[in-house]
């Protein structure tokens, strides 16, 4: 093997040798026109994601995590490089992909009842009858524990329940790839850990390939098989950290494992070191580190 290859490139190659990746992000770059010069947000991003793997993308705030996810989802066209699903380059939102947004209040349609929200994307499949659509949606709602809320409007439900409707809507499409953009950032801590476990269970059960964008380092380690740390300016993949924890995760036991704590520290250090390398730390008006920095949070 060529010694000139970076560790990422080697990881890239070895993944390819084992199994073709479900998703391949290849040399992706994204820049926006800003006044007279182009502002580059992402550069030379390579990530291979094998089928059924759960990966998390973390990085300091403003690192371009959401931009990367939007490129992978096909909502945005990258300025260079490509995103491939099963070897095929995508040019728009591909089939068998579902996206869960942070802001459930806006991504669920308030004029539709819960069931109609979940069946709406299924209408694209002309082979399904209305009855079949409803049955699929009801099964998905049951999987997230919302069978009773079928005939309510989303805004009649709590935040956590609304995000579960969004999860059910994704699930009903039977996606092979599930993308989530800080899905648990707008709910309280208890609901958050419930939703984490719900999503973990669903991703395992339905054998989905999952990408989670999060600003929470604990969550990234707890949920995933691998953590992608973004950093640098412009942003690229700073580090890939494999999470070799037992597959069955538990909020209490997993999080108290020494391995979990070591991994969590590693991810945190990676996030913080690339932030130090890429710019001044975030300070508030008085020059003190912000709350997120003090708490070791990777930033939103």
């Amino acid at each position: 093997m060529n010694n000139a290859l970076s560790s990422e490139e080697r990881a890239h190659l070895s993944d390819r040798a084992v199994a073709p990746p479900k998703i391949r992000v290849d040399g992706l770059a994204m820049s926006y026109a800003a006044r007279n010069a182009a502002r580059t947000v992402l550069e030379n991003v390579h990530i291979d994601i094998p089928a059924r793997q759960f990966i998390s993308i973390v990085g300091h705030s403003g690192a371009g995590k959401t931009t990367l996810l939007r490129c992978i989802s096909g909502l945005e066209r990258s300025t260079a490089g490509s995103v491939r699903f099963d070897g095929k380059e995508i040019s728009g939102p591909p089939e068998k992909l579902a996206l869960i947004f942070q802001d459930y209040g806006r991504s669920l349609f308030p004029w539709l009842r819960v069931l109609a929200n979940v069946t709406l994307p299924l209408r694209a499949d002309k082979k399904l009858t209305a009855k079949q659509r409803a049955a699929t949606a009801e099964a998905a709602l049951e999987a997230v524990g919302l069978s009773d809320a079928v005939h309510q409007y989303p805004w009649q439900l709590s935040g956590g329940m609304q995000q579960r409707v969004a999860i059910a809507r994704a699930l009903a499409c039977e996606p092979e790839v599930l993308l989530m953009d800080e899905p648990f950032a707008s709910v309280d801590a208890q609901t958050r850990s419930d939703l984490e476990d719900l999503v973990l269970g669903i991703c395992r059960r339905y054998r989905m390939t999952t990408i989670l964008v999060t600003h929470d380092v604990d969550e990234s380690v707890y949920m995933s098989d691998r953590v992608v740390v973004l950093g640098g300016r412009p942003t690229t993949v700073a580090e890939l950290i494999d999470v070799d924890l037992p597959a069955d995760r538990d909020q209490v036991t997993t999080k108290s494992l020494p391995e979990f704590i070591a991994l969590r520290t590693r991810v945190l250090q990676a996030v913080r070191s690339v932030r130090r390398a890429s710019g001044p730390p975030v300070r508030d008006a008085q020059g003190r580190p912000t709350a997120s920095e003090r708490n070791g949070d990777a930033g939103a």
Partner: protein
Amino acid sequence: MTRKVSLRVVEVGVPVGLVALWWFLSDTDFTSYYFPALRDIWASFRATWLFARVGSDVVPTMAGICLGYVISVVLGVTLGVILGSFPRLNEFVNPLLEFLRALPAIAAVPIFIVLIGVSLRMEVAVVTFAALWPILLNVSDAVAGVDPVVRDTSRSYRIRSFDRLVRVTLPSASPQIVAGMRVALTQSIIIIIVSELIVSARGIGHYIQTAQWNFDITAMWSGMILIGLIGFVLSKLFQVFEYKVLAWHRGLHGKAQR
């Protein structure tokens, strides 16, 4: 609960009380040529509108309002969706649209008379012209301003374009569409009466005009009261429609306020 009841009492009681006051005050020895007794107006109203002239005057006026209004809603929503979906096109025609909206439709009545001639078609055209702009501009605004998260959601879930229009874009724009329709309804009523006052051989406006020419002040009043009643009933019907269509919006808002 008691507050709700007392509100109802005020809501119904005040108008009834005012009418009663009018009835008894105008029934005293004081008589004015221009303010006839309500008793006389009511007699004239019964003789004219229940139901002698319904076919000859009320039906044409209502037909003008309804046809013109329906056409302007269909046209306004269709064109509004098109303009709202193509921001470039919208930018291009917007100054023209703003000008047409600012132009009082009354000023255009003579042109329509010359172009079409005095007929139901002319009245429908005039009503459409008056009611179209508030709907069109509201729809194009709302469609252009659909929440980006809503757009992203429908794109990433590959919702079919027909579903996207009927089940996403239009409902999302519906609060503004309904607001435009409410303004347009008032405009329709005003403009048809005005065009009948200017030139027409029939209609409630024409009846009032003729009554004035004949110094039949009581008949004038009865026509005015009829127009007021029609406006009132149409706006109540619109409220029912709005209540149904925007139930989700009210719920969403009520929750946000709590």
